[in-house]
Every structure is written in C-alpha cells, then in structure tokens.
C-alpha cells in the first residue's frame, strides 16, 4: 500500500490488529467496529483472560466482594457480536511498522493494514525478590487472586507490608486492613501520593491510613527482603516470619520488619520490549504525534503511549497511566487510524482518575504538578471532604476532590476551556 493511501485512513475492508487486550485495546477494537470498519479485526493479548477491568482488582476482587469473573469487560458473545477475534494468551514479540507485520510468540505472523499498539505496562519489582512468591505486585487478575489467597491462608492478623504509598499501594493497604490484616505501608517520599497530588494534599491523605489502623512510614526505603530461611545476621530475636512467609523486610533505617506478605507498588514500566527492533521511537513509552500515530497506519493507546500534547500554550510529551485516559485514548487511536494521519484530530483529553481507599473517594481532574499552587475552594483537610485546585502560571491545571464528586465536576468545563486561576478560584459552588 502506498503512503498516499494510508493517508486516506484504514480501508474499511482491510485487516486491523490491536495488540494488547486490556482497556485501551478493547476500546480501540470496539470503536473501529462501531465507526465503520468492516474488515477482519483481531485483538491480541498475552493474558489468558478475556479483556477485563483493573480498578476493581485492588478493591472488590481483593476484598472478595466481587467474584473475579465480574471484572470481564467483554465476554465471548459480546466480542462475537462485534466480530472481534480475541486471541488470548498470545504475546506479540515483534512489529514491522512499515509492512505492518506482527510476529507472535508462537512464530506466526499477522499482516495488517492498520495496527493499534496497546500493550500497557508492567509493575516494577524490588530487585532481589525474584522467586519469593510471597513478595507480590498487583496488576493482573491473577496477581489479585494470588494475593487474596495468600492473605486468607495466613488468616486474621496477617502481617502485610506494602512498599509504596501510591494509589495501588494505598488501595491494597486499605483493602487488607478490611481483611483484618496488620498492615504497614512504606513510602520513600515525605507523604503518600506526592508525585500524583503534591505533598500538601499528600499529607492530608496520609491521615486516612492511620484512621484504619494502618501504620504509614514515610521517608523510608527497602534495602532487601530476606526470606524466612535467609541470612540471620542482624535478624531480631523475636517475631520471626514462618516458613512460606515473605520474610524480613530490611529498611534503609536499618530496621527489620517481619512480613507474611509483601506487596510492591512502586510504579510501572511501559511494555515496549517487543518493539525494540521495530524502528519506532521509544522513550519511556512509544512516542506518538498529537493524533497518537507512532508511524503511518500505526497508532498507540494506553499506559505505554507517549503523545505530543499541545494545549494552553504548552507543548509537552506526556504519558499518563489513568484508566480514563486509556479508555479515551483507545477510542481516539481507533478514530485516528480510520481518519488517516493527515485528517486525524489531536488527542486532547481532560485527564481524570479516581481512587477508593478507606471508604473515601479521591477524584482528580487535569494534571496536578507537585510544584503547583494549591487552594482549597470547598471544605478543608480537617473536615476530610474537600475540593482543592491546582494552578500554575495563572492557569487552572487540576482539581482534586475527596468525597465531593458533584462539586469537583463543576471544574471540568473550566479545565477543558483552559480557565484562568482567578476564574477558577472564584467560581461559586452551591
């Protein structure tokens, strides 16, 4: 196919392959089909499960209030109805973006007229803990099931050490506290969630942990996790973890913490290893233009997509790991593919994310920067329910609410319109 014809967009009777069968990939496939693509449509994913929703994993699935199958986003009958061929348990290992050829783990090759890359990200692990099965992460349905089984096997009083007080770590701590575990959260920064919401709000959110009896320790790192049968030098005389437990968590302070289970939530890395020889530009993600194209007829969406975002005089290369952004990017990546590179509109979302922890909902619109100015416009940290705004350079950049969904949403049109800090902070809230 010539470069000219790819500029015209994906031929509606061609073949489209979406690599990555989680939220962004599924939304991309659904959108292709819903918006006029009539050809062969493949959705390739390395997990054995059908596309499923991740936010409930650290909450309802870990808590056991939902059966795991409830997280499925699209079952076989729904996929069949949309004529989406889901290939589960099939990782991609290489892409030729010029010929649009995708090589799968089993050596087979798929040829496509259009490709959406949506292989997501994988959790970072603590170095030296490979092989210790009681040191886990929480990203997949299998991770959540394994963690739940391990916590239940230890029973009430299970000593859970959570490394990292980000959103995943905080939610896991909250859920484990609800399962009668004795939970300790370790955070290297001065407050939880500091990179996401800044230290002022982070300090306000830190109190949630204590309210549920969870011990939060900040400004502390982990130097090692020694299995129960590991080296005894420096080991405390009492409280030794039983065989099968995670072992001793050794802190940068020199202290040893006994842990039955360790959960590591220290961020993710984009899954781009399979693209290393593709010739696509990779830089902490797949580098895309403003319309999510990584190459002609190749778009990317979700946690691994880094796109050129121009708005309000800013021109940034950003990669965002939020559920809502992944969902919207999946839609946008499909539309870009259908429209072709010349005509595709820019991807310009109002980022949104939420977190449920300790019975409280935290919601954030926009993109807070830890260096932003912060103003409370409703409630206060003391009350535990509030709306706070983030501003920089005279502009509203983000709005955060704790237990205030209605008032938060008043700021969405302002964020979409690029409102001034003055206008935002003087908005009347009923």
């Amino acid at each position, binding site marked *: 196919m010539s470069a000219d014809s790819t500029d015209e967009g994906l031929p509606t009777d061609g073949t489209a392959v979406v690599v990555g069968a989680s939220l962004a990939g599924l939304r991309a496939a659904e959108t292709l089909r819903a918006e006029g693509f009539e050809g062969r449509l493949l959705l390739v994913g390395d997990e054995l499960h059908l596309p499923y929703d991740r936010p409930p994993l650290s909450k309802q699935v870990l808590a056991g209030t939902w059966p795991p199958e409830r997280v499925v986003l699209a079952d076989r009958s729904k996929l069949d109805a949309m004529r989406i061929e889901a290939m589960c348990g099939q990782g991609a290992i290489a892409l030729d973006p010029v010929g649009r050829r995708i090589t799968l783990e089993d050596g087979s090759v798929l040829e496509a007229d259009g490709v959406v890359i949506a292989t997501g990200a994988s959790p970072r692990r603590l170095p030296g803990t490979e092989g210790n099965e009681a040191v886990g992460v929480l990203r997949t349905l299998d991770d959540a099931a394994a963690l739940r089984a391990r916590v239940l096997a230890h029973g009430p009083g299970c000593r859970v050490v959570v490394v990292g007080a980000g959103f995943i770590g905080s939610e896991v701590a909250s859920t484990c506290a609800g399962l009668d575990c004795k939970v300790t959260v370790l955070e290297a920064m001065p407050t939880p969630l500091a990179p996401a919401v800044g230290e002022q709000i982070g300090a306000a959110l830190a109190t949630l942990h204590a309210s549920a009896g969870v011990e939060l320790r900040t400004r502390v790192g982990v130097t090692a996790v020694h299995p129960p049968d590991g080296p005894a030098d420096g080991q405390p005389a009492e409280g030794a973890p039983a065989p099968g437990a995670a072992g001793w968590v050794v802190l940068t302070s020199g202290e040893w913490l006994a842990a039955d289970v360790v959960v590591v939530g220290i961020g993710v890395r984009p899954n781009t290893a399979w693209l290393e020889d593709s010739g696509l530009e990779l830089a902490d993600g797949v580098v895309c233009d403003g319309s999510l194209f990584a190459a002609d007829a190749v778009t990317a969406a979700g946690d691994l997509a880094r796109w050129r975002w121009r708005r309000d005089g800013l021109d940034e290369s950003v990669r965002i790991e939020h559920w809502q952004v992944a969902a919207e990017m999946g*839609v946008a990546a499909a539309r870009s593919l259908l429209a072709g590179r010349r005509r595709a509109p820019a991807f310009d979302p109002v980022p949104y994310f939420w977190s449920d922890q300790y019975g409280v*909902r935290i919601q954030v619109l926009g993109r807070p920067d830890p260096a932003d100015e912060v103003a409370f416009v409703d409630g206060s940290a003391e009350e535990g329910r509030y709306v706070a705004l983030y501003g920089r350079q005279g502009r509203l950049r983000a709005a955060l609410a704790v237990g205030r*969904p*209605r008032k938060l*949403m008043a700021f*969405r049109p302002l964020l979409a319109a690029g409102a001034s800090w003055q206008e935002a902070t003087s908005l009347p809230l009923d």
Partner: protein
Amino acid sequence: MRVIVDFDLCESNALCMANAPEVFEVRDDDFLYVLQEEPPDSLRPKVEAAARACPKAAITIVD
C-alpha cells in the same frame, strides 16, 4: 431517546454530570439522579458523551 442507568454499576464518579448536567446530577448524598429520563434530541451529543465518559459503562441510550 431514553436514558437508562444501571445503578448496580454506577459508582458516582460524576463524569456524566460533567458532560450533561441537564440530565445527570450527583448530589451531596453521592448518589446519581437522572433528571430527565427522556431528554430532548438536542441533548443527544451531550448524553452520548456522558455515556462514553462513564468509567463503569453504566449508562445506555435506547432509541
């Protein structure tokens, strides 16, 4: 056009309200209220945006 919300799925994220405040309202009790179950066609783009924005896909539009 008829708006149907699956309240077993709804988590009151309130994104629907941000997109179509004429139709959806999350009140201080944190529950979603549908203000117009059969909104006029002039609101269709907003209601469709609201349905797409819902993180739980709890909103459906029936014609």
